[in-house]
């Protein structure tokens, strides 16, 4: 069983030249966990996650981990206003380059192994061809669902 056989091929994506406003709308409408970011040739250059959006509205001394707990501090006056300035920013400024991608021929065993070793906030694995053009996406549920279906069929 390969990645190609379990991936979802209908993937919502966003162009690297778009604005964050487009990304917000996509997150709101589709409720996706991560949005692949594509260049003009439809190649994957990064991902946008809801977590990267939250990260972008916090000051960097917090996101760097220098203050891991701020319950002693009153809310920053400009913290909420930050979200407005974020909307006009470009996708290319905020995309995360740290994402997982596999080829369609990768075995499901390998995909599963990769998935559990991923950084916790990225859950899905992208499937790309050798030119890094996006073919599909695999979430942990996809892996589980397809394996379950497979074993049910085998039992019958």
């Amino acid at each position, binding site marked *: 069983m390969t990645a190609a056989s379990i991936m979802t091929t209908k993937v919502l994506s966003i162009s690297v030249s778009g604005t964050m406003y487009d990304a917000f709308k996509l997150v709101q409408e589709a409720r996706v966990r991560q949005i692949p970011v594509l260049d003009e040739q439809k190649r994957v250059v990064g991902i946008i996650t809801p977590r990267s959006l939250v990260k972008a509205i916090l000051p960097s*001394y917090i996101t760097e981990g220098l*203050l891991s707990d701020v319950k002693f*501090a009153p809310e920053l006056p400009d913290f909420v206003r930050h979200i407005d300035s974020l909307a006009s920013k470009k996708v290319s400024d905020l995309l995360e380059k740290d994402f997982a991608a596999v080829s369609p021929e990768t075995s499901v065993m390998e995909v599963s192994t990769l998935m559990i070793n991923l950084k916790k906030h990225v859950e899905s694995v992208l499937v790309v061809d050798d030119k890094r053009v996006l073919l599909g996406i695999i979430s942990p549920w996809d892996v589980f669902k397809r394996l379950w279906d497979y074993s049910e069929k085998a039992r019958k």
Partner: protein
Amino acid sequence: MAQTFYIAIAVFVAVYALLIWDKLNRAVVALLGASALILLGVLNQEAAVHGIDFNTIGLLIGMMVIVFICQDTGMFQYVAIRGAKMSKGDPWKILVALSIVTAILSALLDNVTTVLLTVPITLLITQELEVNPYPYFISQILMSNIGGTATLIGDPPNIMIGSATGLTFMDFVFGVGPVIPIIFIATIIPLRFIYGSSFKVSEDRKKRIMQFRESETLTDIPLLKKCLVVLALVIGGFMMQRQLHLEPATIALFGASILLLISKKDLHHVMEKVEWTSIFFFIGLFIVVHSLVEVGFIRYLADLMLDATGGDMAVTGYAILWGSAIASSIVDNIPFVATMIPLIKNMAPAFGGDAAVLPLWWALSLGACLGGNGTIIGASANVVVSGIAHRNGHEMKFFKYMLIAYPLMLLSIAISTVYMYLRYLG
């Protein structure tokens, strides 16, 4: 003999050049130099190990472990916020309060740890106040290096000097400590005039500072109590060093092991937080400098210096003070001090023994620690603060920093010169 003499010098120069070039990790450079000396037959391994000052290494590791565990309790942030609140939200008074906290903390912790604790709090406070954080960054850089000068454990040069000479914690407090409050005041007053205009904020903003709840930083009260007991034990031990006949490394490592035992922290996690790259930098550097001692080059340099100063104590003292300050403002003060220590030791007989060169140690300490303030790359704390500032949208440019800091550094050395004259060299 002659051949190893030149090999040792060549390796030393190469190590120094690579450190100044600053493109490779300094620990890698020092260890490469050290192993090259052994491979090329200048030292055998036994002699190399003999050159390592394990007192410095032990003290550094012990303090890193203690400070890391104490940091988890939030006690240092508590102190910083408490200090800021005592100023009732006035921006200038906050700057003074945070400077005092920085100076005191860095006298007891290493300077980088200190600024990593105070700078994020500073950014939060200045954002609440909507004032420019730049003067706060400058004052915290300057005060971390000034405060660190006051004690044996405050700054690596002092740790090395104390280790090599047997000068104790209290020797440093009485030997260089008295001039530190004077330098503190002389440094902070000009900042008021330089940045005076940026300290005006509305009453509303001031009130926000009073909304900080410092008690919320204390996350683990049982651990806090344990940490305070161990800190009291360790600092008490340092103060009683002479009576106890203990080296500082023993005290620090004993405190660290007690704290590891009673805090029940995961040992692997704590050990990962020890800055091993710094430790191995020291190890490599000690070996490189030791080879210069072994081949007689330091002896040769000492004779040169005695010739140049005419064997005059005062001239030598001022030369070391100013020379160390200028050198440390450009290069890392650790390799510089590591080289100066055996040099001063070699000059001791000419001045009438170890006791007679005491003023030279204080000159080296003041020059090397305070000199680091001169440029943004002069000391590790400077580099760390400018890094955080940069990532938060406040660039600290080399010349812009130097324009303010270099004259203030020279002022601190001038004050030290007067101090040295009045107490030791006059």
